[in-house]
């Protein structure tokens, strides 16, 4: 007898596996169609919920990126003291970026907005610039903006610190909720698709349990029985995955275009890397679910 590897594969076994797989597909065309449709529907739902998650978190990011703290330096600070203050804030661990608008710049911009020249405005104001130096601070984690603002207030040299408390305190729970909702939707539909698909595979395996029992009694190894199921699952999952990717891909493109035309203020994620990742992810998931699901459902019936 030939020495065979761990999984009992040899050339004639490979032939056998292919033949068995094709036979099984031919024998139960409707079960195959049902499996493909199950995988497809599950993955379509999963694909759309993945895009929903992407959009939800994108929207949350966008809202949050607009959250910033405006801190004003006391007007009696010298230029170098303001720069030192800026460095001090930059070195704080929660801080993502600090942008300094000096009082001179502020005055210049203010003057320009009034349409005059800097010199005129300064002299009009009696030679002293009443505007403070402004430091715009962004937090690493926008959810912690309130804490950061409180800490900034304690810094000597800073006068008023504000971050639009009213809006931000309402916005942040909303973005947190939005991300959470996206994750829950993906999680729930992942579980639902797995259940749906595994019921389908179990039906297939169950309808052939007697066949499996006989094979084992005649001396078939577990892998000899498993391979055709695995390959069948792989093929059905692959077809289902491709169909799902097509539907999700075209569907999302259409939806994004439609939203852009009618609700231009609602930004849809149009990241093509992400787009292809999700689509290939769906195909891969289909194959993995088909193969692993089949092998898994077999376990009980292989104990003969």
């Amino acid at each position: 007898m030939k020495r065979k590897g761990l999984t009992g594969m040899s050339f004639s076994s490979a032939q056998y596996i292919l033949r068995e797989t094709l036979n099984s597909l031919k024998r139960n065309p409707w079960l195959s169609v049902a499996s493909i449709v199950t995988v497809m529907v599950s993955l379509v739902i999963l694909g759309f919920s993945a895009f929903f998650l992407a959009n939800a978190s994108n929207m949350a990011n966008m809202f949050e990126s607009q959250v910033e703290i405006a801190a004003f330096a006391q007007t009696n600070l010298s230029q170098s003291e303001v720069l030192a203050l800026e460095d001090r804030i930059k070195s704080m661990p929660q801080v993502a970026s600090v942008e300094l608008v000096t009082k001179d710049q502020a005055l210049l911009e203010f003057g320009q907005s009034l349409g005059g020249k800097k010199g005129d405005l300064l002299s009009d104001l009696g030679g002293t610039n009443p505007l403070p130096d402004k430091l715009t601070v962004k937090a690493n984690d926008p959810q912690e903006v309130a804490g950061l603002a409180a800490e900034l207030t304690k810094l000597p040299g800073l006068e008023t610190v504000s971050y639009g408390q009213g809006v931000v305190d309402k916005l942040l729970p909303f973005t947190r909720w939005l991300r959470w909702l996206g994750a829950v939707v993906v999680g729930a539909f992942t579980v639902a698709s797995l259940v749906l698909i595994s019921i389908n595979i179990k039906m297939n395996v169950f309808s052939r349990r007697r066949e499996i029992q006989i094979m084992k009694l005649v001396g078939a190894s577990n892998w000899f029985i498993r391979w055709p199921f695995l390959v069948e699952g792989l093929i059905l999952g692959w077809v289902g995955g491709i169909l799902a990717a097509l539907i999700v891909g075209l569907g999302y493109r259409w939806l994004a275009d439609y939203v852009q035309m009618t609700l231009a203020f609602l930004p849809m994620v149009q990241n093509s890397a992400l787009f292809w990742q999700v689509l290939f992810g769906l195909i891969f998931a289909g194959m993995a679910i088909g193969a692993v699901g089949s092998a898994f459902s077999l376990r009980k019936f292989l104990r003969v």
Partner: protein
Amino acid sequence: MIQLNNVTKIYPNGAKALVDVNLRISKGEFVFLVGPSGAGKSTLVRLLFREEVPTRGQVTLNGRNLVRMREREVPLLRRTIGVIFQDFKLLPNKTVIENTGFALEVLGVPAKEVQARTRSVLDMVGLSHKTRAFPGELSGGEQQRVCVARAIINNPALLVADEPTGNLDPETAWEIMDLLYNINKRGTTVIMATHAKDIVNQMKKRVIAIEKGRIARDEEKGAYGYEL
């Protein structure tokens, strides 16, 4: 070759199929298992290819302990044993030729060799004209012969037959017996559970009678011994 030590088998539903059975069968023997229906013949036979594991006691085959055997060694054990099942156990979706060749395919034998050997063995059991039929299209006796063909195709060291003539007319039954006789002559140990009184009486082989799960009689060149 085969040894049973204090074997008791109680099924999960509480049925006591075998009680404290001790038995030795040497290589090359031809043994009949007789006894009333429900006596435990099939159960004893199933212990030999490990379809069942005894509740108590040990079963040894060629020095290997079948009770302590690991799960993945079981296929290797079964490949050295040919089994003619009382209920045939044919794959309904495979043709006669596929069902028979299956025992070889499991071993990874190349397709060409499977074809050739399958044809010759189907010839031996007189089914060469029905190779493309499915089990559902065969009579009981024909299905039984497919099962015989599958059991002998890889020249097993042990042939276990559970009523291999149960569905056959006397003439075909004797053809099957000739087959088993010749296989035994070539060195294969044969164990056959049967109710066929004439066959047992004429073959004059060792007869083990089982009643209510116990060995009631064990005779060389024995007779069936029950009046039906």
